[in-house]
């Protein structure tokens, strides 16, 4: 079976590298996007099995990318986990309303993130 493909969209290279290392060690195939526009384009191109999406990014913010992806037939089914420093109720609710699978507030727990990723991938496989 092919490894699951995960797209990491975050404008902070340190976070991208951290998550990439963390998940690559567990056998996932990682793709990285440094801004909102590329995140959107790569999601369309790569068709990842899961996407980790930051909210504050250049060119397009995470909510924008999320709602766009959820409105396209080709990308609607990609499960998306939002990862953001934004921790206000409205923002979290908005994330779920727009169709995110999960919402992780930064700073985050790395092992917890791995479990969430695994769980969501399992669920979408079945």
């Amino acid at each position, binding site marked *: 079976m092919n490894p699951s493909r995960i797209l990491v969209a975050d404008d902070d290279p340190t976070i991208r590298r951290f998550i990439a290392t963390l998940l690559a060690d567990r056998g996932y195939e990682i793709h990285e996007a440094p801004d909102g526009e590329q995140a959107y384009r790569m999601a369309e191109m790569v068709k990842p099995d899961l996407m980790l999406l930051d909210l504050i990014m*250049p*060119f397009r*913010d995470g909510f924008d990318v999320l709602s766009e992806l959820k409105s396209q037939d080709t990308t609607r089914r990609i499960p998306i986990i939002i990862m953001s420093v934004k921790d206000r109720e409205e923002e979290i609710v908005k994330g779920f309303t727009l169709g995110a699978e999960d919402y992780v507030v930064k700073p985050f727990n790395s092992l917890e993130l791995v479990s969430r990723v695994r769980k969501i991938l399992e669920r979408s496989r079945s």
Partner: protein
Amino acid sequence: MMPLLAVNWHDLLLRSVVTFNEFVIFYFLALNSVYLLLFIVSLFEVVRFVRRTFFSDYQQILKSEMTWPISILVPAHNEERGIVDTLRSLLQLNYGEFEIVVVNDGSTDATLERLIKAFDLRKTDRIYRRTLDTARVRGIYASLEVPNLTVIDKEKGGKSDALNAGINISRYPLFCSVDADSVIEENALLRVVKPFMEHPEDMVAVGGIVRIINGCEVRDGRVTKIGLPRKALPVFQVVEYLRAFLSGRIGWSVLRSLLIISGAFGLYKKSDVIAVGGYDSHTDTEDLELVVKLHEHLKRQKSRYRIVFVPDPVCWTEAPERFKTLLLQRNRWHRGLLQSFARHWRMLFNPRYGVIGILALPYFLVFEMMGPFVEVLGYASVIAAYFLGILNREFFLLFVLVAILYGVFLSIAAVLLEEISFRRYPGWDDLARLIWYSVWENLGFRQLLALFKVKAFFDFIRRRRRWGDMGHRGFRETAPVPTQIPR
């Protein structure tokens, strides 16, 4: 008798040329020494500033609920070309709570229609207080998709009038004036609000640095790659801006007598601006007039207050690329300066107004108003001396020394300030060109500006008040074609 008299006249002419030339030398020496002092003050301040912001806690400010919300005011008159892009980029600003108020000041083009279409605007019956008097407001529009955007449609009343209408309808205690054709860096608001958070009681206004966008790559209303313009005229202005902002305004700000905050980007406490009656439409430069008015009012109230310049927040704006537009722009600036001076001359040499009365205004009187005359006449007189055959070597060397080389030194020193602090121009070729143009700036460009100012003075005397329209080329057209994503 006749020949004798003629010799006397000739003698007198020679002597006056020589005396005037000595005066010119003295003038340049004084002028450049003032600049040198400002540079030294600025050098210390820049180093201090960089040390302080070296570890930024902008993330902290961003998340803090105690950060004051800001209303961004965008006056727009015939800006159909860029207004939608500008707004899209403003909406991306990295800041907690802010609203954007666009004021369509009687545009005759499709500014309003484009806004309505792009943001799905609807006319609303929003209620607000008419604190300041303005031209009639035709309608207030709000957007269903962007809740923090408001557009005011009003009859033409000029930029000051538009800003006042914006002040009336804005909701928050701080407002930020922004030009419709400039690009604000995404963290600029965070940086410019910091002084307000540090001194919430006394901070009245904060100005940010303005940089020149010509030559930069712009995508989606955001500067993606910084570079110097290709043409010479805008590069001269880059050097001039560096000098004016990094070693001029910082210095004045430290001396607590900052008189100019660029209309392109400044943050004000609304209550104080309302207390002085808002923006004034009687001068050509409403930004300068407002700051001078604030100073005068607050000094009279004997209140402790601060009006400061922060060298870091960045607003990118388009510089004129042709002589004619540059002339119009500078003409307007200088006329505005003269008009404000004429309105507030009572502050001059008045100890009640502190450093401003004793130092800043006299500086403006001597070097900004009379200076250009001395400069222009000075060059003319040196040339006259040459043709009269009385230009001796010592004098010429001295002139080169104090008028040209001293200036070159100061221009390069400003580049140095940039290099030890913000380093916005990363490439070696950019640095080389900056230094090269710093030298040439003093051999033509500065003299040209002096000429412009002399002309502006006469225009001021003739009470000619014309809007120096910039004749925009629209920087978005100069940038490479943006890669469009399907929306």
